[in-house]
């Protein structure tokens, strides 16, 4: 976070408008692997007592103390061999996400000099309540524990929940733990922000599908880390990793994993597969491996460094010794140098920081839609920085596999990192509009998002949703698309939830009215419009929407549609408001020729009053 907040315009300190008294009254619930309570990011220095509304407790276990920043702690993890039962973070992940959402501003932080800056959360004045549900090893993060965390967080009166946890596949709501917890949170006015998952770039790989959850994809920032390889012939090649080790430019003999084994076939040895490298052949050398998955193998056999190949070029990782990850073409350059040189040598330099990276670009790993449970609800919803984020960590966890170092700040990558960024922004927006419902906050962030580039992003809106979060513009969205608990009950009725299920979930004795039972999922008042159509014939679909005026009392908005591949008709296409919180409805009719299978066509509907630009995606796709 030393650069991600600046990247999206949320400057530190006086650089951004803040409502500090309300921000200090905001409580963010973090359902994760706990926190390292001694971190400066969670220091209570300068904080007053917890907000009056706080109903939680500090039950973090032995040697876990809370303070006026870290006001609450609970843990739901079973006893794990060798680990104390506590809310203490043994994985680093929970400290990272909690500090990204609401960590104190801590100056001059880096990872061994890399990424130096001021680490901070989106709302540094807010309080943090920790709900630990994950520990290393088995059973990891259990859903029965996660549901307990939601049960407590809601009752403890947190304002917002951030949970960077998910499964490999999506489930029906009544057996989807995070959807269940988030539904009851929404019913109590609490927004749940959830990571989209890291199973991209394949389609339909996200597990966070409920419309009452705010699902976050990941992108990069303009800051990147470059790890140069210098060959004996003086040629320099740029690779990726977050390498803090300095070989002082000394060149070492190069050896290819493929020819450094006495126990495996060349096919296995070339990947430096575990057990394949012969220490007599690699000791004191730099090993070339065709995969970045087993770097510590070379290290264990005495290698000085490793140069590996990867097809994923958009993210660097930390390794336990000097490693540079090259794209195939660059890797082949090193191979041919090695094959054409009598005593090939090279060195791996300490990483450098570059600020020239094209951004935001959706991360290759970020899970994609379409939504496999509700095809007409666009997921993910929004994109935020998730790649190479420097934030708080736990010295109880190694910064990388087989790493013996202990750090309080580290660099992590994933939608786990983008999720708390959006949680921080949602809390920030809420400090200006404390009475706004979860759906209003979510709408404000989605309709003011930076557009992202469909031409460079496979699957466009199924990759980045409404676009990249823009905290400053989201403060004044102009209009919002609201969907409260009863709208979601109607949505469930339209999905044939009825009788006992509906009564129990809603807690109301009512059944679905006929009108409700006929409602279409795409008519949920969502800040995006999506329709799955058949591939065989031209399509014509309508969407009904209602907007609430949160801009100027007297305002006239005109509709504009951007994106030519869809024929879009908006009726009425002018909305005139006389008062704040006044609502107006409209219908959007979208038509077009038949689509190829698995193709999507999108446009954007923009309501503008000359000052606000309320933009939502319209996506039509064929299954």
């Amino acid at each position, binding site marked *: 976070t030393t650069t991600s907040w600046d990247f999206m315009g949320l400057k530190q300190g006086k650089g951004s408008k803040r409502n500090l008294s309300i921000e200090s009254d905001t409580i963010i619930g973090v359902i994760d692997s706990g926190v390292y309570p001694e971190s400066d990011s969670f220091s209570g220095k300068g904080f007053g007592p917890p907000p009056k509304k706080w109903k939680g407790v500090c039950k973090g276990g032995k040697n876990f103390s809370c303070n006026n920043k870290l006001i609450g702690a609970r843990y739901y993890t079973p006893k794990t061999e060798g680990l104390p039962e506590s809310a203490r973070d043994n994985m680093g992940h929970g400290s990272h996400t909690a500090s990204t959402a609401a960590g104190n501003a801590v100056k001059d932080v880096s990872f061994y000099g890399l990424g130096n800056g001021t680490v901070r959360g989106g709302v540094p004045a807010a309080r943090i309540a920790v709900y630990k549900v994950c520990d290393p090893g088995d059973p990891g993060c259990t859903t029965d524990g*996660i549901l307990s965390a939601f049960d407590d967080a809601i009752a403890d009166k947190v304002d917002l929940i951030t949970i960077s946890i998910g499964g490999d596949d999506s489930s029906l709501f009544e057996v989807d733990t*995070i959807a269940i917890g988030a539904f009851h949170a929404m019913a109590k006015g609490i927004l749940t922000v959830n990571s989209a998952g890291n199973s991209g770039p394949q389609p339909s790989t996200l597990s966070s599908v409920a419309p009452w959850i705010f699902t976050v994809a990941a992108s990069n920032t303009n800051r990147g880390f470059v790890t140069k390889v210098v060959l004996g012939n003086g040629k320099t090649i740029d690779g990726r990793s977050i390498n803090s080790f300095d070989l002082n430019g000394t060149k070492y003999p190069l050896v290819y994993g493929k020819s450094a084994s006495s126990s495996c076939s060349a096919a296995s040895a070339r990947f430096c597969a575990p057990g394949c490298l012969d220490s007599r052949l690699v000791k004191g050398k730099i090993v070339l491996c065709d995969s970045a998955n087993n770097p510590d193998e070379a290290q264990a056999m005495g290698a000085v460094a490793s140069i590996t190949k990867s097809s994923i070029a958009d993210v660097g990782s930390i390794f336990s010794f000097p490693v540079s990850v090259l794209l195939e073409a660059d890797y082949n350059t090193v191979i041919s140098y090695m094959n054409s040189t009598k005593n090939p040598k090279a060195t791996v330099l300490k990483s450098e920081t570059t600020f020239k990276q094209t951004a935001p670009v959706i991360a290759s790993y970020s899970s994609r839609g379409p939504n496999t449970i509700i095809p007409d609800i666009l997921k993910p919803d929004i994109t935020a920085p998730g790649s190479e984020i420097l934030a708080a960590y736990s010295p109880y966890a190694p910064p990388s596999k087989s790493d013996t170092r202990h750090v309080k700040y580290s660099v992590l990558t994933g939608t786990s990192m983008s999720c708390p960024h959006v949680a921080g922004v949602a809390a920030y927006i809420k400090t200006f509009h404390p009475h706004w419902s979860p759906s209003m906050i979510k709408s404000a962030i989605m309709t003011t998002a930076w557009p992202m580039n469909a031409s460079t992003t496979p699957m466009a809106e199924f990759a980045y949703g409404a676009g990249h979060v823009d905290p400053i513009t989201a403060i004044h969205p102009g209009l919002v698309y609201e969907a409260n608990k009863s709208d979601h009950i109607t949505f469930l009725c339209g999905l044939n939830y009825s009788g006992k*299920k509906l009564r129990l979930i809603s807690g109301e004795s009512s059944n679905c009215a006929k009108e409700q039972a006929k409602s279409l999922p795409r008519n949920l008042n969502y800040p995006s419009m999506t329709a799955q159509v058949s591939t065989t014939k031209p399509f014509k679909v309508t969407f009904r929407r209602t907007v609430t005026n949160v801009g100027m009392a007297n305002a006239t908005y005109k509709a504009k549609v951007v994106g030519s591949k869809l024929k879009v008709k908006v009726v009425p296409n002018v909305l005139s408001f006389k008062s704040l919180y006044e609502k107006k409805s409209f219908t959007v009719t979208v038509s077009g020729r038949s689509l190829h299978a698995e193709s999507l066509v999108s446009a954007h509907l923009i309501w503008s009053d000359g000052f606000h630009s309320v933009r939502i995606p319209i996506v039509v796709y064929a299954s």
Partner: protein
Amino acid sequence: TKDDQDKQVYIVYMGALPARVDYMPTSHHTSLLQDVTGESAIENRLVRSYKRSFNGFAARLTESEREILASMEEVVSVFPSKKLKLQ
């Protein structure tokens, strides 16, 4: 195939908490478990109760006990507790 005696942790989701002030979630969960298991002592069956913000519990159940609970009027769904991942 798992024989019927194999137990695993299931989540028994019962929806919103009833508005009745006299509703005692934990004793309801206990009596449901006693009915389904036929055991009076259910301490080593009940893993946790959800009783502050919504209704339900997690318990060690056999497959047949799961089916009985799932069919009950006051239960929305019964599904295995599983392992999710940090992302």
